[in-house]
């Protein structure tokens, strides 16, 4: 059982030990050095370590892309150990990256914990004359950077009436006035009037990938891949076309919650409107909507001979832009697999009543993997907080107006519980309890009509807000599981420039990082699903062939290539972006002349559990056998001897 999580150095040494102990089955690639000087490594596990062109397909596992999820790095070590322990057959090569952002991970082990996904690149956040000079400070020396709340006439925050440990924004439309300003715990180190505005560190590697990369943000980096961890990862992956799928261990869970859609702007290639000038150039109707195929048909005769128009060329000329939502065909299998996973978890008695995993961030590894690599992209977060159980507050079921028309006996007949609830609901002063009220009614000191009148004149209760379920879960988890250690209760502190403040709030990492002792039990349940998913990855075989003699030495040859597994080759996104390397069917024989068809036939796509048929007309002048070979980077190899 784990006593603690791995530091970046421990991850490297853990993987080095695995590589040493499994020579011939595992080796380490260093793919970058982080700005903080930490190596970014990938452990390769497989049976083809020294082949530069692999025959087996591969899986890439990116753990801890933001560096703030030590649990996910831990899971990557567990995965590596499992792969290397028992005699699990290594049908795939596995590339396992234990942490993409070692600089940020290192921060988890600092004396003062501050949850922050920046690597150690120097970034001048506040654009002044110094770099990284004003980060947060652990003022109350509790080892955590939490929040500070300060009474401030311009404050927009109030203490949540429903849960006094929590803050929420005052709702001015409901007559609430802000009382507090919230800061991150710290001082104004550079004396510029701002607090913690130029903390150490720079780029969040988890948002520095090219898909939906956002320029000019505080932690996104100057350009996609501007930080070496990300650039190194992209190069490593593109150098390995055998990679058939990726798994991300982080904060999203595509195995459970498919990637989100609903963004504006995916180009619809079946409904393209041509801009006026282009329509004119092509001699097209600018009021009509065209499909991509129609446009290619229209334009092909206009390009110089020998140039074959591709959808990408047209899309780029028309400025159609990229895909931003998961394609429906892909969502279909994502959904089906997530339902299966949910069943699997229930069967394993895993509590699935948890907070939703995070949504994938723009510029994240997993979005890049799906949209740019076009690969089946799964992710696991392994832990989110269990949802807080709703305490069913007893409700009185009556209103003040109803009370007005009740007799004392009817009201007393409701019973103490309901009366107490009623009093509480209507903001009665603390000292008024059911017992007391019943006594007053019985003695005739008051009657329901009087009571109602009094209660109507009392100030309306501050409505307990809908407490953020995430915070509610946190408090329940902190109180019930962590013995209160998940939340720092607000304590006053004399701040050098802000005066009296209170310091408190969620403990860093608490939302995503359970105590290390809990890691194994979480991972042991969830990790095996990876192997189930891998079984679903597409695999192509030559399943059947038919030969028909057409007379003389001429034959019609039909070959069926089958995808024996559930997932399509490639994904719909992979079809769209044309990125996954194609499979190719080769026909080889001495004296073979292909009259119709190609000696190398690209197979661009085969749906899950289905076939494509390839047809040839051939002439064989000598010999009677042809070798049909299926070659691919990521969906297997096969060959069949064809007898004529």
């Amino acid at each position: 059982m784990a006593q603690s999580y791995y530091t970046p150095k421990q991850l490297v040494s853990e993987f080095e030990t695995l590589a040493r102990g499994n020579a011939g089955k595992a080796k380490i690639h260093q793919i970058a050095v982080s700005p903080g000087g930490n190596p970014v490594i990938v452990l390769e596990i497989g049976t083809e370590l020294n082949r530069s062109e692999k025959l087996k397909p591969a899986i890439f596992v990116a753990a801890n892309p933001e560096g703030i999820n030590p649990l996910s790095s831990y899971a990557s070590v567990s995965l590596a150990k499992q792969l290397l322990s028992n005699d699990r057959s290594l049908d795939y090569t596995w590339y396992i990256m234990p942490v993409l952002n070692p600089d940020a991970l290192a921060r988890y082990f600092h004396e003062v914990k501050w949850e922050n996904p920046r690597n150690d690149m120097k970034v001048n956040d506040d654009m002044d004359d110094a770099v990284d000079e004003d980060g947060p400070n652990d003022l109350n020396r509790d080892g955590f950077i939490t929040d500070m709340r300060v009474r401030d006439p311009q404050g927009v925050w109030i203490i949540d009436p429903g849960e006094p440990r929590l803050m929420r924004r005052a709702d001015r439309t409901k007559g609430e006035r802000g009382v507090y300003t919230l800061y991150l715990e710290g001082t104004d180190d550079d004396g510029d009037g701002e607090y913690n505005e130029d903390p150490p560190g720079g780029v969040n590697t988890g948002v520095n990938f090219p898909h939906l990369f956002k320029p000019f943000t505080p932690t996104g980096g100057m350009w996609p891949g501007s930080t070496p961890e990300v650039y190194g990862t992209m190069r490593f992956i593109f150098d390995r076309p055998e990679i058939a799928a990726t798994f991300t261990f982080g904060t999203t869970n595509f195995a459970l919650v498919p990637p989100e859609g609903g963004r504006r702007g995916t180009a619809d290639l079946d409904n393209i409107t041509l801009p006026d000038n282009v329509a004119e150039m092509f001699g097209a109707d600018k009021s009509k909507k065209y499909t991509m195929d129609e446009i290619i048909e229209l334009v092909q005769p206009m390009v110089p001979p020998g140039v074959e128009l591709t959808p990408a060329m047209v899309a780029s000329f028309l400025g159609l832009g990229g895909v931003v939502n998961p394609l429906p065909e892909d969502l279909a299998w994502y959904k089906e697999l997530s339902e299966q996973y949910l069943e699997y978890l229930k069967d394993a008695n895993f509590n699935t009543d948890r907070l939703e995993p995070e949504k994938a961030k723009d510029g994240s590894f997993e979005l890049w993997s799906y949209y740019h690599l076009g690969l089946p992209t799964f992710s696991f977060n392994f832990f989110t907080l269990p949802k807080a159980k709703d305490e069913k507050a007893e409700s009185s079921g009556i209103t003040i107006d109803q009370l007005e028309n009740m007799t004392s006996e009817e009201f007393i007949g409701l019973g103490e519980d309901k009366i107490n609830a009623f009093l509480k609901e209507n903001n009665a002063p603390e000292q008024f309890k059911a017992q007391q009220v019943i006594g007053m009614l019985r003695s005739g000191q008051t009657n329901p009509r009087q009571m109602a009148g009094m209660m109507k004149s009392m100030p309306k209760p501050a409505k307990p807000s809908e407490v953020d379920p995430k915070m509610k879960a946190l408090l329940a988890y902190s109180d019930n599981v962590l013995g209160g250690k998940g939340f720092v209760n607000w304590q006053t502190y004399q701040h050098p420039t802000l005066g009296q403040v209170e310091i408190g709030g969620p403990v860093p990492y608490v939302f995503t990082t359970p105590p290390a002792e809990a890691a194994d039990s979480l991972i042991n349940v969830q990790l095996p699903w990876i192997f189930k998913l891998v079984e679903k990855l597409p695999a192509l075989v030559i399943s059947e062939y038919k030969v028909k003699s057409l007379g003389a030495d001429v034959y019609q040859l039909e070959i069926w290539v089958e995808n024996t597994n559930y997932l399509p080759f490639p994904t719909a996104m992979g079809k769209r972006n044309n990125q996954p390397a194609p499979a190719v069917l080769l026909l080889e024989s001495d004296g073979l002349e292909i009259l119709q068809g190609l000696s190398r036939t690209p197979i661009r796509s085969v749906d899950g559990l289905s076939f494509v048929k390839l047809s040839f007309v051939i002439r064989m002048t000598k010999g009677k056998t042809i070798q049909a070979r299926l070659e691919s980077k990521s969906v297997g190899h096969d060959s069949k001897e064809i007898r004529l």
Partner: protein
Amino acid sequence: MKQMKKIFAAILAIWLAGSAMGQISVPLRFDKYHTYSEVNEAIKALNRAYPNITKAILVGKTEENREIWALEINNPQTGNALEKPGVYADGNIHGNEIQSSEVVLYLAEYLLKNYGKIPDITKTVDRNAFYLIPIVNPDGRYHFMEGGSSMNNNRSLRIPRDDDKDGLFDEDGPNDLDGDGNISQMRIRDPHGMYRTDPNEPRLMIRVKEGEQGEWTLLGNEGIDVDKDGRLNEDGEGYVDPNRNWGSNWQPDYVQSGSGSFPFEGVGLKAIAEYMHARPNIIVVYAFHNYGGMFLRGPGSKFQAPYSPMDVAIYDILGKHAEKMVPGYRYLISWQDLYTTYGDFTDFTHNTFGAYSFVGELYMTSQETYSKEVQQVEEGFSWQGPANNEREIERLKFNDKLAHGTLFKDWTPFNHPDYGEIEIGGWIKYSTRMPHPFMLQEMAHRNAAAVIYAATQTPEIELELVRVRRLEGRLYEVDVRVKNNNAIPSMSYHAARQKLYPRDILKISGAKVVAGGEITDRFNNKVNYKIHRPDVQFLQVPGNGIAEFRFLVEGSGNIDLTYESVKAGKKSLKVSLR
């Protein structure tokens, strides 16, 4: 002994090859196109001839391990290069666009040879730092000039791509069948073809009309079907377009062909980006291409927000001068007037480095004239390229009378392995997109002058004391003016808004600064006081504009004012309090 002789001969051959490169000497010649190694040799020759004010810097290496060289021009006597406005110019990002390197070389030599002779040039050399990379894509230039090529081949980075998705990479490019260094056109006599000989010019063909007898079928670029898939030349070099692989607004290959797999997949491009990143003083960028006769500015796509109107005003000043300096060239907006691009170089330098960035599209075939009149030919963009026989006939006359037949290869019979008897001919690689060398020098000079003009407009900052006024005792009011004598602001509006780097800093030391701030209305005495750290002020100085500050200081004797800008250098001023 025989062995020794062999080794000696090999060494001699290498030495001779080296000394052959050594034939490039200053003054450079601009009546020819330099090869890849000659350009590098020219950079070194300029560096040898002007050692005090130049540096030859190895920027990085390419996919095929060729070297990318920069020539830096800076007079250390007038200051550190990083403390002067930097002017960057490059060429030949597309391997086939070779005249662009000559423009950059010309610019370098023109600045150097006239330094100390022409006051305007002396001033700009003393005031600016020039970063000149004549060849961004050495692999492309090498294969274009030293291998068989058409005018359109060898643009790419040498990153193999499987264009035809058959699992093989770059296996079926064009082939120089006749070994003349050109990938020309192939045609085959075919009575059912779509073309016949143009009755007005036997070297040209015209399309047959419905019902007319044909004469020729065009077979495309010179080549064979290497991979026997029934298609010719369908998987040549790359294609990764070196001007679509930069890290600004980059989109993958399916959105735009030629993007590469990820930003800066090109190792040479990455090296150049890092080179520029280490020179944050670069404020003007000119990237030369061919062709079309244009000065382009971004944005490259409508998905980017339009440039700030204040920046556009600066672009307009530079661009509108440039188009007058090079007659016929037009100053245009890339996406709006041409087509959408993602990940191009000048968007990157504008967006990431805050440099005012232009593409110079050199040359127009309309300059190839055989006519008494000076003509204006509007050169538009079209999918079909310039295939107007009237113009082609005149170009052929230009070829015959001015280039003496060297630009067009006459149709020549050839026995093709797949097609049998065919003819090979057409415009050679050194035509169409680039001028005959006799026209090179004027083109180079005019375009180099456009760069020099931009250099003269880089910010020139002066720090002036407006006045010192004693308020009481040791308390003084000090008004200071930061003035820019040129059109380009001390930082672009984009850089300021997107916080690419800190704004200019004005610091005061030597006395206690009680209050300080920017004077927002100098006629009505309004000051925007900065409460925290009033001794440090942040500013941007507009083009031909000023920024004024007021400090209330407590002290006596001298105080020091220093101005420091990422792009506009450093200035200091001593002020006596009295």
